[in-house]
């Protein structure tokens, strides 16, 4: 197998795994945020802000991984 093929394979698998982790993280985050909002609707404004910040941080980590995958795939 030539190294370029392995790089493409790595990029594909890497993108998949990164998205898997980010999806898990954001899913858990939103689930608990909705649960808390249902218990205390008066807190929903602050919770939404915190949730968006958390989601952005998780997404940032996933995007680091995706940037590496793009670099691998376009080399």
């Amino acid at each position, binding site marked *: 197998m030539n190294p370029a093929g392995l790089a493409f394979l790595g990029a594909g698998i890497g993108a998949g795994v990164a998205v898997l982790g980010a999806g898990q993280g954001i899913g858990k985050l939103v689930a608990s945020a909705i649960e808390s909002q249902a218990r205390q609707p008066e807190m929903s404004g602050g919770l939404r802000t915190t949730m968006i910040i958390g989601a*952005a941080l998780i997404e940032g980590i996933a995007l680091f991984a995706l940037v590496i995958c793009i670099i691998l795939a376009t080399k």
Partner: protein
Amino acid sequence: MAATDTILTQTPANASATAIPQGAAKPNYFNEGFRELGNHHTVDFMPFGELPLPYIFFDHGSLHVYASVESLKESGVYTTNVDPKFDPQQLIGTSPLTEKGAALRIDGKPIGLDLSITSNLFFLGFAGVLLAILGAIAASRAKKSLIPSGLRNLFEVLIIFVRDDIVAPNIAEPYGSRLLPYFLTIFFFILLANLTGLLPWAHTPTSSVEVTAALAICTFVITQVIGIWTMGIKTFLLHLTAGLHEMELSIVMKALLLAIMVPIEFMGIFTKPFALCIRLFANMTAGHIIIISLICLALLFHSIIIGFFVTVPFAIFVYLLEIFVATLQAYIFTILSALFIGMMAHSAHDEHVHDHDLPHAPDGDHLVATSHG
């Protein structure tokens, strides 16, 4: 490499031919599509021709200005790395996301200082000028009557949102109102720069890592300056020990922990703006890559059915999603900047250091913790 091999075997003649002969390598639509995302030296108004942007160098002690690629090549000193006519032979060895039409010296020496106006710079200027004009119109309407309407109303809603929901909950008061203009500037500028990229023929300035890095560096400098200003240089440096200098531990234990904690805290200073930079860049690039991939899919399969039932609906969906992402990323960049800057201002208040240096410093319980919305 497989990707470049297909370009290598492809001749310019069959790249333009609609029917690809059997056995010949297919053109790499994806690489050519992705190349459109990079920085260019022209603004492309597709059926109506293109606007060349000037090449400006400060090279070997003198200023060189060329109006377009043609005059650059006539100079005999410079050439470009990628031919604008997409000569496939010249694409080899360049990544699709690099600059298209970047200048090179014929003798192979590096160019001194490249100040060329590229499409990034052009559309950054476009967003800036647009923001100035819209802001001036909104402000002039505010002078005429007290009742907000139309454009002025929109500006007011966004400005109050930034003030009350982004800056006030995160930054302690004397700094909050002093830094408000900075947050308003980055919010509106990133918002307009992101939305500029969704116009036809436009290039997204925020989808290149240099632009977002410059924005992140602004936040980084303000964070550190506020930190040193509020805490003083000594407390600022002690901040790097994560509170270990106050703990009662044996000398060996302390030395071991410090050897781990100080590098981590030091790296933490730089990872925050780095994450800001990569987040904005990757978010703005990702949507474009998806749209280009969808368009390339129809080209790859040579099929109207795929074009009609896959490319068009999904591209429109991603485009609408991008409008949302453009707004969200402006918000995220601003609120994370506010958080990072606020952490520095807050920690100064918690420790009550150098409070006498601040002319208008409020009490510690003045920390604005009001939650809105």
